[in-house]
């Protein structure tokens, strides 16, 4: 990592030198400031981000030390650095952790910079709202996102069944699954992955029923009857061979490469709109996206435009003003916008969207159109989840889905265990 950073710095330094030379000024090596930036993501995101940091260094002379890690490695590292009082100035933050970090003053409120270093005049109101904790702004949304069902269109063609539209329902999913079973393509490819483990899918299904994963005051937003019905529905889909077997599903341990879509075991995968780019990069078959299935025709409101991720500024940073200036550049500079595209989601300022739209490739266009045209699928942004949500997801939702899948528990038992276990974790947090 350090070698990579060194080369980075060398590249940044030399590009600054070139830029300065091109502008006809003699280069000055006395840099005014240097900022540290940390983010999670893959190589594609890193290339874009480094493109912008290079641009910033060339424009402002501020040295940028940017580092990236995979999601699973990111949070331990960030927490350790924060605990050691050595947090980077600019931190990529997630909806899941923003409350936790803000409440502990690990990230700084940005309100004092708004109107000054940070110009948010044409920023989407709902995206601004998403970055607030207790009424104060702690994160600048880097893009709007929605959950989306990724579709392997080549597989649908082979089966000879139409790719679903945003109007489709869980009943349609059953029909599609039957068609896949009859066609028996590619060694028994199923219609969809086992979504009973998927927190976003449960969330969407609950919202269509007028419930929620969590209420505004951090309580569970559904009851045992909901949970039992959820597991029963998936048990039916599993028994009918519409979704993959529990044994296959357990091969999915998180990375894109282990998902049922990439392994070719399912043609549909619940995911996020901005991830189409990343999935398409590692797959031969053409991908498209539609909304999640509706619980019945005409029902909607399960989706929402969620901030895909934020940039926050460390509470311990001595250069908060300079960091805010960089954030402003990142979200509003036209050249930066062209480099960033929609890899982090749809840009949140109208002016930036207009700059980006004509420059997009096919997958990014699909994502942009999908998020812009959610129609009646779109509902209100839910409150940010309580601190224990991550643990409930990891140790209950994912495990209970498997236990029903492998026949270790009935849907009734799993439903009761989910609600009791979640309440238990919430009361302890």
């Amino acid at each position: 990592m350090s070698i990579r950073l060194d080369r980075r710095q060398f590249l940044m330094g030399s590009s600054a030198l070139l830029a300065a030379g091109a502008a006809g000024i003699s280069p000055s090596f006395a840099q005014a400031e240097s900022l540290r930036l940390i983010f999670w993501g893959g190589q594609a995101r890193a290339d874009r981000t480094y493109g912008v940091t290079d641009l910033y260094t060339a424009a402002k002379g501020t040295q940028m030390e940017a580092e990236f890690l995979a999601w699973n490695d990111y949070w331990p590292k960030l927490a350790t650095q924060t605990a050691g009082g050595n947090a980077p100035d600019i931190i990529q933050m997630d909806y899941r952790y923003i409350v936790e970090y803000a409440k502990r003053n690990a990230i700084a409120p940005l309100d004092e910079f708004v109107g000054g270093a940070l110009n948010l005049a044409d920023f989407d109101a709902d995206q601004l709202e998403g970055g607030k904790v207790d009424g104060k702004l702690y994160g600048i949304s880097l893009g709007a996102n929605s959950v989306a069902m990724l579709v392997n269109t080549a597989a649908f063609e082979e089966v000879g069944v139409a790719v679903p539209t945003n109007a489709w329902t869980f009943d349609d999913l059953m029909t599609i699954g039957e068609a896949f079973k009859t066609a028996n393509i590619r060694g028994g490819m199923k219609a969809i992955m086992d979504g009973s483990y998927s927190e976003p899918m449960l969330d969407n299904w609950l919202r269509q029923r007028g419930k929620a994963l969590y209420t505004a005051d951090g309580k569970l937003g559904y009851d045992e009857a909901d949970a039992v019905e959820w597991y029963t529905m998936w048990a039916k889909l599993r028994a009918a061979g519409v979704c993959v077997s529990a044994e296959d599903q357990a091969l999915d341990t998180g990375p894109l490469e282990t998902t049922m879509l990439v392994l070719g075991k399912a043609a549909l995968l619940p995911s996020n709109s901005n991830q189409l780019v990343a999935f398409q990069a590692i797959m031969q078959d053409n991908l498209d996206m539609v909304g999640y299935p509706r619980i019945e025709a005409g029902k909607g409101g399960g989706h929402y435009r969620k901030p895909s991720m934020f940039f926050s500024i460390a509470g311990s940073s001595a250069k908060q003003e300079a960091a805010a200036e960089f954030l402003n550049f990142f979200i509003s500079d036209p050249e930066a916008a062209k480099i960033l595209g929609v890899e982090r989601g749809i840009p949140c300022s109208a002016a930036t969207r207009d700059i980006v739209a004509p420059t997009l490739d096919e997958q990014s266009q699909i994502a942009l159109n999908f998020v812009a045209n959610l129609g009646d699928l779109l509902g209100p942004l839910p409150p940010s989840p309580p601190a224990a949500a991550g643990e409930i997801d990891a140790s209950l939702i994912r495990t209970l889905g498997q236990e029903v899948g492998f026949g270790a528990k009935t849907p009734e038992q799993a439903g009761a265990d989910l609600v009791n276990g979640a309440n238990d974790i919430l009361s302890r947090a």
Partner: protein
Amino acid sequence: MQDTSRSSTDHQPVVHTAWSRFWQNDAPGYLFLLPWLIGFLGLTIGPMATSLYLSFTDFDLLTSPDWVGADNYIRMFSNDPKFWTSMRVTMFFVVFSVPLKLAFALAVAMLLNRGIRGLPLYRALFYLPSLLGASVAIAILWRQIFAGDGLVNKLLAMVGIIGPSWISNPNYSLWTLIVLSIWQFGSPMIIFLAGLRQIPTDMYEAASLDGASKWRQFVKITLPLLTPVVFFNAIIQTIEAFKSFTPAFIISGGTGNPINSTLFYTLYLYQEAFSFFRMGYASALAWVLLALVGLFTAFSFFTSKYWVHYDE
């Protein structure tokens, strides 16, 4: 030099002599010891003391720790099903992987002990998995081999058996990790081999003259004379098994799935510390593990006098 020393001896004879003796005789030793000592205090004793302190707090990495007394330990034993799940998984792993691995290591060592051509090559080959064993690459390779459409099932398919997906089926996933651990038999094997070389060959000659079968020679000569080596290997491998982390982490993507069937104790500890930010609780878990391994080792030493022979 000597003059000055003599003149100061007149003032404070005893102190100075002791000091100069220390300076001349002992100081170089301590000086050479210093790097290790600094490392020992700074990297072992310091962190251990901190972790012991943190185990009585609710430290969450982001805010300063608050003292909670024995709460962490009480919760562990009275109100944490996952603690018991991870304990059961780890115990199962230790109980099956250690004896099987030792038996396999001894069998291979006996094979290699007979003078065969290219012995060094075989020794190196058999040791190789142990060198690579705990690495990420091997765990990923193992994942490929034991997946539903992996090498193992392709071989089974040749004889008409349709195998399950060994790593993602909760009935087999832990066994897959046990097989992986047995495969890393290299280091106990090398130690067994050294032990076997120490047994005088005339004992076997005498025994075979008396008409003792190979099996009887093994039971009556090899095993008893090898017990100190068996004892050593058993202790080391048991501690290793308790600490085992990487393979389970890689094969389950850090989750301990399917259905917590590979939730090793260390994996659970890691989850509590770095996924759920409960450093205090994780520290308490670590100390319980230390106590457990200590108990096991003490028990082994206690029973060893009944079966380990150090005669001659």
